[in-house]
């Protein structure tokens, strides 16, 4: 169960619309390393996780990613307000506009629609945690690329916050991996999957 709060996790206040920037940043909504996939990944993986501390981390990070979906969407909404058809064509935003007008829709910057095939819920403790660690680094790298392409302090401020959160999440998942390994057979981590195999503790 979740309860909505009528606030953003971090303020988004963009003075100047810029559809070109929106077309780049939309990848962090529906792209391969975007926030929609991040949230679904953690909120699905947590059911198979046998260690309550790690289930807590997956629940709380997955919930925060929902707030990041809202923040990225707010950035897109503000970047695409008050546009003229001429601005839309000149900026190259026309290929998004023709299908979605200025509605928020999860696609990659290339236009490829969001697909759950981009993430896994493997039901295997080590496989899932390693995916989570990689996912946070890939999202961090995407935010780095956005910061290389975007030159507007209002946009960069919110993007830098989101980038910093990827680093914190990576740290928490690294601790989750350590917690898992502390509970596993140090001589053979891959001997069995504690999310499925029932083996009595030594």
């Amino acid at each position, binding site marked *: 169960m979740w*309860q*909505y*709060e*009528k*606030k*953003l*996790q*971090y*303020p*988004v*206040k*963009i003075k100047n619309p810029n559809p070109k920037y929106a077309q780049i940043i939309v990848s962090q909504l529906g792209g391969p390393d975007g926030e929609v996939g991040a949230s679904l990944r953690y909120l699905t993986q947590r059911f198979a996780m046998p260690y309550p*501390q*790690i289930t*807590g*981390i997956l629940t*709380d*990070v997955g919930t*925060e990613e929902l707030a990041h979906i*809202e923040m990225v*969407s*707010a950035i897109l*909404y*503000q970047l695409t*307000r*008050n546009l003229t058809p001429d601005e839309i064509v000149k900026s190259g935003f026309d290929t998004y506009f023709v299908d979605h007008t200025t509605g928020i829709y999860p696609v990659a910057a290339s236009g490829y629609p969001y697909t759950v095939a981009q993430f896994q819920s493997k039901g295997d403790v080590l496989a899932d945690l390693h995916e989570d660690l990689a996912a946070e680094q890939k999202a961090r790298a995407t935010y780095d690329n956005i910061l290389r392409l975007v030159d507007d302090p209002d946009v960069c401020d919110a993007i830098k916050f989101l980038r910093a959160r990827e680093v*914190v999440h990576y740290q*928490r998942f690294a*601790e*989750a991996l350590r*917690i898992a390994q502390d509970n596993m057979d140090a001589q053979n981590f891959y001997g069995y999957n504690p999310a499925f195999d029932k083996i009595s503790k030594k």
Partner: protein
Amino acid sequence: MMNNHNTKDRMMKAYQAYSFAVYDALLYLDAYPNCREAMEHYNKYQKLASKAKAEYEAKFGPITAPVEMSSWEWTNSPWPWQIEGGR
């Protein structure tokens, strides 16, 4: 009017900052449940966050749907992605 917007922004920012501190401590405590320092930090900012939330809500309308209400105010205030004076 401008002043009122500034106050609203400032009070919202205070709540955002305090509730972020609460959330970040919560996430840390998932990994370090026995850390007393983090728990004190969590409790301290939880108090500050509740206070900031109540103060904001009294002035500018509900952040969460209220426990009890005399009129339906939930959809009267702007959504958080809407900029004042914008669309």
